[in-house]
C-alpha cells in the first residue's frame, strides 16, 4: 500500500516535483522555528501550543478527507482505479482488515512525508532560535497524535458513510462535540504530557486511535447500492445547451452544458459549500485565537474576508476538475483548453453564489453591510486572478499538480503577495479611508489585468496536451 501511495502521488505530478515536496517542508519547518520568537510575540505560550495542536488536528482531518470521498473521488478524476483497498472484492480479505491497514499506511505515509521533514527542519531551525532541540523533538512527538486524531476522525466518518449518510452525519456531529469539549476544557492529553510530563503520551495516542479502531470495526462488508434513479428529463441536455449559447465567445457551449449537468448531478455543489466552510471556520478560529492571545485586537473586516473568500475560489475550480473523468473528450475534436475554458465559465457564472453567500453572511454578522459592495469587488478580483492563474499552471489536474513542489512554490509566489497587500490595506481602512479605497481599487484592477494575461496563456500552455 505504501509503495502504491508513493507511485500514485508521484504520478500526479512529476517525480522530481513529488520528491521536492519534503524539501519544501524542511524549509518551512526551519523558517518557522527560526522565526518562532517573532511569530509568537505577545501570545501566551499555552495558546501557541493549543493553536499548533488544533492546526495539526485539522490537517489530519483534511488529509483523511480523501478517505471520505475515497474511490468515488479517484474514479471520477482517474477513471476506473483499482487500488489495493479494493482487494476484498476478489480476495479472502475483510474490509475491516483492509481499513485498519489503510489507516496505518496513511499515518506512516504522512509521518514520513510531512512530519519527518518538518521535524528535521524544526531541529535545524533551533540553531537560530531560543528553542532547545530536545524540547522541539518532544513538541513534535506530542503533535503527531493530534494529527492522528484528525485522520482517525475522518476515517470514522468515511466508515459510517459506507453504512448510511445519517450515520456519517451523526458520527461527524459527535466528533465535533468532542472537539468542542476539548477546546472548552483547554486540554489534550498529549499537550498536557508535553507541558507537565503527565498523563503519559500513550494516553494521547490511545484516544487518537480510538476513532480509527471504531472505523475499522464499523465498516460494513457490503455496500448496498441504491436503485439508480432516473436523472433529469429527456430535453434537459438540449435545454441546457440552448441556455449555454451565450458562452460561445469564451468556450464551446456543448462542453459548458455537459459540465453544468455534471455539476448538478454529481452534487459537487454541496461539497463545494463544505470545502468553503472548513477553511473559513479555521480563519474564524485564528481570528478568535488572536483575539484571546494578543494584547492588541486584530479585527478582520469584511474586506479582509473578501480577500480570503476570493482566494478560496481556487478550491471551487479544483472541485470542478474532480467531477468526472475527462478522457471521453479525447474522442472528439476538442482540446484541453476547451475544457479548461468551459470550467472557468462555470466558475464565473454558476458557482459564484457560494462565495457571494458567504460574503453576505459575513457582512451581516459583522454589521458591515456598507462594506459589502467593495468586499464583493475585491473577492471577485482576487478570485478571478487566483483561479485563472491556477487554470494556467495546473490545467485539469489542480489537486494533483499542487503536490509538485515547483508548481506549489509558483502558486505561492503569485498568490500570497497581492493577498498580503490587500489584507494590510483592509486593516488600514478605518485609518485612511479615501487612500485605502483608491489603493484597493487600483490593486484589484491590476489583478484583473493579470487575469486577462493568464487566461490568454491557457491555450498556448495546454493545446496538444492529453485529456487523461
Amino acid at each position, binding site marked *: 500500500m505504501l509503495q502504491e501511495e508513493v507511485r500514485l502521488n508521484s504520478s500526479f505530478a512529476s517525480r522530481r516535483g513529488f520528491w521536492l515536496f519534503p524539501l519544501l517542508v524542511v524549509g518551512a519547518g526551519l523558517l518557522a522555528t527560526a522565526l518562532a520568537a517573532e511569530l509568537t510575540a505577545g501570545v501566551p505560550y499555552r495558546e501557541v501550543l493549543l493553536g499548533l495542536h488544533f492546526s495539526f488536528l485539522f490537517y489530519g482531518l483534511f488529509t483523511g478527507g480523501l478517505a471520505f470521498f475515497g474511490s468515488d473521488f479517484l474514479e471520477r478524476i482517474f477513471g476506473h482505479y483499482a487500488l489495493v483497498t479494493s482487494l476484498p472484492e476478489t480476495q479472502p480479505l475483510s474490509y475491516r482488515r483492509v481499513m485498519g491497514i489503510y489507516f496505518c499506511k496513511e499515518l506512516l505515509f504522512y509521518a514520513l512525508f510531512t512530519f519527518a521533514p518538518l521535524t528535521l527542519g524544526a531541529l535545524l531551525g533551533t540553531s537560530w532560535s531560543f528553542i532547545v532541540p530536545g524540547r522541539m523533538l518532544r513538541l513534535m512527538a506530542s503533535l503527531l497524535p493530534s494529527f492522528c486524531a484528525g485522520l482517525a476522525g475522518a476515517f470514522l466518518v468515511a466508515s459510517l458513510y459506507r453504512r448510511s449518510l445519517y450515520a456519517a452525519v451523526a458520527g461527524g456531529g459527535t466528533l465535533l462535540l468532542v472537539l468542542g469539549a476539548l477546546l472548552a476544557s483547554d486540554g489534550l492529553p498529549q499537550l498536557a504530557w508535553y507541558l507537565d510530563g503527565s498523563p503519559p503520551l500513550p494516553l494521547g495516542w490511545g484516544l487518537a486511535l480510538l476513532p480509527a479502531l471504531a472505523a475499522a470495526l464499523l465498516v460494513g462488508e457490503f455496500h448496498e447500492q441504491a436503485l439508480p434513479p432516473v436523472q433529469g428529463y429527456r430535453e434537459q441536455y438540449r435545454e441546457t445547451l440552448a441556455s449555454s449559447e451565450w458562452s460561445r465567445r469564451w468556450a464551446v457551449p456543448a462542453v459548458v452544458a455537459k459540465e453544468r449537468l455534471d455539476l448538478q448531478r454529481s452534487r459537487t455543489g454541496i461539497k463545494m459549500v463544505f470545502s468553503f466552510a472548513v477553511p473559513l471556520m479555521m480563519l474564524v478560529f485564528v481570528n478568535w485565537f488572536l483575539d484571546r492571545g494578543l494584547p492588541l485586537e486584530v479585527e478582520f473586516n469584511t474586506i479582509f474576508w473578501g480577500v480570503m473568500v476570493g482566494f478560496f475560489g481556487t478550491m471551487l475550480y479544483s472541485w470542478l476538475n474532480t467531477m468526472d*473523468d475527462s478522457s*471521453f473528450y479525447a474522442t472528439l475534436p476538442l482540446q484541453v483548453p476547451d475544457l479548461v475554458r468551459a470550467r472557468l465559465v462555470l466558475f464565473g457564472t454558476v458557482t459564484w453564489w457560494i462565495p457571494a453567500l458567504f460574503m453576505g453572511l459575513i457582512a451581516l454578522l459583522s454589521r458591515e453591510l456598507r462594506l459589502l459592495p467593495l468586499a464583493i469587488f475585491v473577492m471577485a478580483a482576487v478570485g478571478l486572478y487566483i483561479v485563472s492563474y491556477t487554470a494556467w499552471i495546473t490545467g485539469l489536474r489542480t489537486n494533483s499538480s499542487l503536490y509538485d513542489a515547483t508548481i506549489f512554490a509558483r502558486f505561492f509566489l503569485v498568490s500570497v503577495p497581492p493577498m498580503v497587500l490587500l489584507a494590510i490595506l483592509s486593516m488600514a481602512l478605518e485609518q485612511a479611508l479615501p487612500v485605502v479605497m483608491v489603493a484597493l481599487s487600483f490593486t484589484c484592477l491590476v489583478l484583473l489585468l493579470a487575469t486577462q494575461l493568464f487566461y490568454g496563456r491557457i491555450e498556448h500552455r495546454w493545446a496538444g496536451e*492529453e485529456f487523461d
Partner: protein
Amino acid sequence: MRDVSFSVERGDFFGLLGPNGAGKTTLLKVLTGQIRATSGEAEVLGLPVAQQPLEVRSRAGIVPEQSTPPSFLTPREVLELVVAVRGCEVDVEWWLEFFEFEEAEGRICRTLSRGQRQKVLLAAAFIAQPEVLFLDEPFINLDPLVQAKVRDWLSEYVAGGGTVFLNTHMLENAERLCNRAAIIHRGRIRSLIELEQLRSQGTTLEALFHEMVA
C-alpha cells in the same frame, strides 16, 4: 514502438493484431492525435496528425479501449453532446434504437453495465458517419447479438466507402471483417497481411499469429 511503417487505403478494413502490451493502443493514440510520437510521421486522410490533431479527430470516429462515456449524462445526452460538438445533423433516436437503449432511458452512464457503456462509446463514434473509424477492442463486454449487429453495420459502412482501423486481439472478429492486417509485437510490426492471400495459402490468421508471436 520501433520501425512501424504501414499504410491503410480508403475502403480498407484494417486490423492491427497483437498480444497484450504489444503497442496497439499506443499506435492508435498516435494516429488519432491523443499522444505525440517521439519520432516519425503519421498522416490520416492526408492530414499530418502531429500538426493537425483536431482536424483528424473531426473527420474520425474513435472508440477507445478502457474508457468510459461521461458518467453523469444519459446515453441520449452523450449522443446529443457528440452531435453538438461535431455540428452534424443526425437522428439520435435511430442510434438509441439501434443499440437498444430504451431500458436505459433517463439513467446516467455510471449506473449502466460495462456492456451498455461500451455501446454508448460505439454509438458516439458511429453517429457522425465519419470518414474513418479507429476502434480499440470495440467488441469487449458486448453480448453475441450486439457483436453481430456491430459487425454487420461495420461491413456496410466499409462497403459504403468508409475505412476502419481495428485494434484487437480477438482473431475471429479480425478474420471475419478485415481485408488487411498487421501483427505487432513488442512495439514492432512483424507482418503485413492480405487476408485473401492468407486464405488462398490455406492458412489462418490464428496460425500466423502464433508463428509471429510465440
